[in-house]
């Protein structure tokens, strides 16, 4: 069992023991992110959560000053919208080295709203497009 699976295994145990944090509302406005700023981070994908209403890329990032890798939470739009701009649920996989461009949380917490992600080993760049279907007959 690798580290990521171990974490999720433990999460499952915690959940069933009733000690886990209650699930909160998954749907919210992206105005929580500072859309006037763009940050960039490099890290390793821990998990890619392909869910409605928002998908989430969980990324482990090595802090510049050393120490243990830190988890970052980069949110993006729904599987339906992502599929139409060329994504699949397998676009990102645990262990992938990525560079993410995102609008950061305003309080400096380790999270943001995705603009684009680049797979460093292949160079493939995937954008998060919310309004990409504003004409008929798109291919």
């Amino acid at each position, binding site marked *: 069992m690798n580290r990521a699976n171990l974490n999720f295994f433990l999460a499952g145990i915690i959940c069933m023991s009733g000690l886990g944090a209650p*699930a909160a509302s*998954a*749907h919210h406005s992206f105005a929580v992110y500072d859309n006037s700023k763009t940050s960039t981070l490099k890290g390793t994908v821990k998990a890619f959560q392909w869910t409605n209403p928002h998908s989430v890329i969980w990324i482990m990032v090595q802090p510049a000053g050393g120490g243990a890798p830190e988890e970052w939470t980069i949110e993006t739009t729904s599987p339906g919208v992502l599929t139409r701009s060329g994504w699949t649920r397998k676009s990102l996989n645990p262990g992938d080295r990525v560079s993410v461009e995102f609008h950061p949380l305003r309080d400096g917490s380790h999270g943001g709203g995705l603009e684009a992600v680049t797979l460093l080993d292949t160079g493939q760049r995937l954008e998060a497009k919310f309004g990409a279907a504003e004409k008929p007959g798109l291919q």
Partner: protein
Amino acid sequence: MKKLRSSTTWFAAFAVCTAVVIAMGLGAASARAADKEPIDPAPTLKDYTALAALPDWSGTWTPDMTDQVKQEKTNPPPWTPEIAKQVKKMYADEAAGRPFEVIDHCFPTGMPSWMLITHNAFEILFSPGRVTILGEGDGNRMRRIYTDGRPHPADPDPSFHGHSIGHWEGGTLVIDTIALLPQVYLAVNEAVGIPNDGDMHIVERMHLQGPDTLHDDLEITASKLLTKPWLTTRTYYRQRARKYEIVEGVCAQGGFIDAKDANGHDTFAPITFHDNVPVGSK
């Protein structure tokens, strides 16, 4: 003469009595009819054939989000002065990064906000006596519009999408919606919306505006919020590429990550949120 008066009185009394008995009988029959639950007839080949005469609204419809923002700025609802103050604060909170969450708790966006502010696609199905709109995004985004000529029920249960009846005027589907939950928002974006407080009424005229463009002309009456009915239009575009087909959208699933339980079975583990934003995978 005395005898005649007596006969006349007796005859009048008999007539009144007969009328009352007949009226009572009719009243009872009427009450029995009202008590009888309506039964929908089985659709016939003719009913299905008639669908072919309706306009072609097949495919997947995607909203013009740029136009949503333009409409929000150029044609805002005629808010009452008191509501306008609340709306102003919501815009300020949104700009400051503290958005009020109109689409919260994974509730359906509801009507008319679904049509007004959606970022997601929907499809429209015709069947005898019914138009059904199925959305994507939050759970249970679905509108049932009865086109079989029925009226609204006398006292319908309020719901997120209300009770909708519709009829066709040429290629235009005219939809009348009442019975919305008072908590359901009249929203202009995902961070600015006000509960309708109980008497919202929506009339829509949905029609093609060109071969692959659908317009929904909405007239929204909400006396607790608006000084007059608000007339506004939203635009959607037809997609036929298969990758645009509607996918399942279970909102609550976004609060969970794949996990294994103690027996090794696949399960969902809740992720951690702070102020509605996911902040931890466990």
